[in-house]
């Protein structure tokens, strides 16, 4: 688009650090009137940080901030809103117990002169606004009862039609179905024609290319490239994102990895046509003894729900599960554990008991094997000591409260608790998240050791490196469905990103 008018927003040399860690380094960014500007970059590249500066969430940064050509400094999100800048955050920020209409008009409910809320008007206007996104919802119903994708759309409705002239959308499509994405894009085009400016952050590069006029690529807190959408391509953007051929020092698995031929072992866990609400659509997969199956997908693609269905925490609406060929329907996580399924969730908060000693954390899942009624603490400690030694957990004191251990060591305890009696199937969610390189290597070695013992392992992650470093076979999930399987072939990070 040829731009005659001055840019609505101009940033020069923006830097921002969090406790000594530089999140943004000297970013220049321009947003034109009536433009949709796409932002891409890996997790932690700095996209969200920059947007939070624009929206007034982060007020402590260096660099020049020009709004309509005038030097501006917001002191809060309220200042930004007053200046016509609104943002849809990655995490939902709705009030679940209020109605849809109240959420659409959160904080700006229409009132009469006495300050009394005009309910009928609010409901009518809310349903008009929702209809512009193609949503036919009863505005009076409680928003918390809606599926997560619809909640996200209501929040988008609120921000899009709040009258803001700059709208920032951070990963708005992760929980949406394809037709909903279409309607959102149509609404964005109309807003652009009205002369508003939109910043659109997404992992879905196809979406970015379709909807935006220009694209900016971030990597490690720097702006790497900016291009007209019509003049670039998906592969060029991915290359800019992950820095292929630039001789980056960090290990980034940009090189190709050759996946082996499938092992000639029987399938241990088989899932057939699993569906769950809006988060899982017709998922079929199997994992064999001595095989690591990687499940890769962006945040919100449904892999966490899939893991929970496999461990009996969630119940699938449709579909079947089988362990060693025998059909199973887990009524509880305890039933899944008894059938030989082990589960390590993605967050330490939900996998461990921080106020209990290490040995109790290690023994919790296998207590039934060593004690029918009376506990045998000596045996528990001995067993825990063996695991602590094998996994090199530091410090090696099994009576220490778990909370005294470092994060990486806690994560190892979360794995250790399943290993005294090896399970048939081990499900690992984000097993290396937040770990340093050394701890990551430990986890890789542990998982390889378990594979060698014939355990069927499923690794689910939003980080391509994790899946690539661990898996023998990889399936890619997108919006609740498996869209691609890599097996017995050469795969690389950009091929994974391309498929997702």
């Amino acid at each position, binding site marked *: 688009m040829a731009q005659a008018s001055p840019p609505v927003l101009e940033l020069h040399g923006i830097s921002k650090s969090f406790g000594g860690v530089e999140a943004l380094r000297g970013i220049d960014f321009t947003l034109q009137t009536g433009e949709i500007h796409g932002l891409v970059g890996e997790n932690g590249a700095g996209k969200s940080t920059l947007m939070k500066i624009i929206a007034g969430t982060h007020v402590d940064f260096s660099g020049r901030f020009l709004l309509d050509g005038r030097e501006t400094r917001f002191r809060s999100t309220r200042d930004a809103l007053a200046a016509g800048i609104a943002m849809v955050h990655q995490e939902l920020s709705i009030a679940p117990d209020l109605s849809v209409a109240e959420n659409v008009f959160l904080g700006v409910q229409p009132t009469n002169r006495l300050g009394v809320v005009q309910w009928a008007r609010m409901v009518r206007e809310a349903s008009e606004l929702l209809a512009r996104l193609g949503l036919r919802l009863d505005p009076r119903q409680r928003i918390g009862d809606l599926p997560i994708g619809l909640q996200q759309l209501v929040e988008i409705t609120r921000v899009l039609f709040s009258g803001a002239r700059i709208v920032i959308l951070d990963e708005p499509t992760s929980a949406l179905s394809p037709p909903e994405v279409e309607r959102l894009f149509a609404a964005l085009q109309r807003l652009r024609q009205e002369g508003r400016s939109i910043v659109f952050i997404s992992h879905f590069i196809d979406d970015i290319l379709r909807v935006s006029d220009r694209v900016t690529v971030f990597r490690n807190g720097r702006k790497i490239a900016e291009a007209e959408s019509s003049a670039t391509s998906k592969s060029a953007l991915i290359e800019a994102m992950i820095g292929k051929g630039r001789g980056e020092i960090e290990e980034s698995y940009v090189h190709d990895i050759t996946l082996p031929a499938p092992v000639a072992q029987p399938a241990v866990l088989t899932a057939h046509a699993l569906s769950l609400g809006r988060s899982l659509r017709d998922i079929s997969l199997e994992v064999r003894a001595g095989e690591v199956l990687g499940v890769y997908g962006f945040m919100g693609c449904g892999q966490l729900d899939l893991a929970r269905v496999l461990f009996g925490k969630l119940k699938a609406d449709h579909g079947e599960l089988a362990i060693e060929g025998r059909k199973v329907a887990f009524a509880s996580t305890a039933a899944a554990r008894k059938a030989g399924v082990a589960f390590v969730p993605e967050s330490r908060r939900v996998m461990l*008991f921080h106020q209990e*000693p290490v040995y109790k954390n290690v023994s919790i899942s296998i207590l039934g094997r060593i004690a029918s009624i009376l506990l045998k603490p000596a045996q528990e400690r001995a067993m825990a000591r063996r695991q602590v030694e094998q996994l090199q957990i530091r410090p090696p004191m099994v009576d220490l409260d778990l909370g005294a251990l470092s994060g990486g060591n806690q994560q190892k305890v979360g794995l250790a608790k399943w290993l005294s009696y090896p399970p048939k199937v081990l499900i690992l969610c984000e097993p290396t998240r937040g770990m340093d390189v050394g701890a990551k290597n430990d986890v890789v070695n542990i998982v390889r050791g378990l594979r060698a013992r014939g355990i069927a392992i499923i690794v689910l992650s939003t980080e391509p490196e994790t899946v690539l470093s661990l898996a023998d076979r990889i399936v890619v999930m997108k919006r609740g469905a498996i869209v691609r399987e890599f097996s017995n072939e050469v795969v690389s990070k950009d091929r994974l990103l391309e498929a997702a």
Partner: protein
Amino acid sequence: MTESPAESNVPSSRTVGAVLRAQMRNIAPFITLIFLSVFFAVASPSFATIDNVGNILTQVSVTGIIAVGLTFVILCAEIDLSIASVANVTGIAVAYFTQQESYVNIANVPLPGGVAILLALALCAALGLVNALGLTLIGIPSFIMTLAMMQIAAGISALLVRGQIAYKVPDLISTLGSASIGGIPWIVIVAAAMLLAGHLVLTYTRFGRYVYMVGGNREAAEYSGLNVRLIVGAVMVIAAVCAGIGGMLGVAHFGSAQQNEFDTYLLDSIAAVVVGGTSLFGGRGGIGNTIVGLFVLGVLNNGLDHVNIDSFLKILIRGLILLAALIINVYAQRLRATAKAE
């Protein structure tokens, strides 16, 4: 107080101050108990006598029996507000199934003593099971579910006695509730035995460990493959059965079975558990704490009688002591967190 034996080998690297702070929850109630005992012993010559110690033991027995089950519930980070009503209805039921004197105007169903006791126990277990199902299958918060059960149990009591008073209970109950052996009241022995049993179960059995783990982090317990619903359901049944036993012996102890007889025991048993230092957030504490809590309340109630205070002021003082204990409970949680951060 008594934690599991494992907890005694705390790593030596921690400073004494940090250990003290981490153990605040257990130390504070004990200091309160010693302080109250010394205060009343000085204030009244009749307080610190063997006879009076016996009085206190007898006075806390019914609360103690009820508090055993409640300790399990609170350790699981749940609450049971129906215990006093369940105690009441169980006591009434056992009398209802016993032959009463001719002047008692109740259309009851006399049965042999053993059968009456079994039916009463079945009744409280069934009420506990309803609580358990409401919590685990339907997902009603325990506060609300047991509030409803409080009314239901009170309603059954009302229908059974219809405003009348029954006196007779089976011989076994009557012995355990009001007789003594070698100068020691049976009810004290039963209370001690049940507290001991509760302690052993919580400390030395797999089920006890699960109770602590579910209370400590319910999500982690579920992701560790524990059957959380089964454990939560079980503690609700245990609480109701303990309340029922307390109710039957209480009826024998008081010498009558009537409506609203146990109303004060709800607050007393919750207070005993919490004042003793068991965390309302679950996972911390135990029967040892409950015993200290029982004595704090027992000494307080008994001592206030000895020092001749306005009996109306007594209620207020009890309330203030309870508030102080709750404040300590919450602070102990925070102190523990800071001790860990060091």
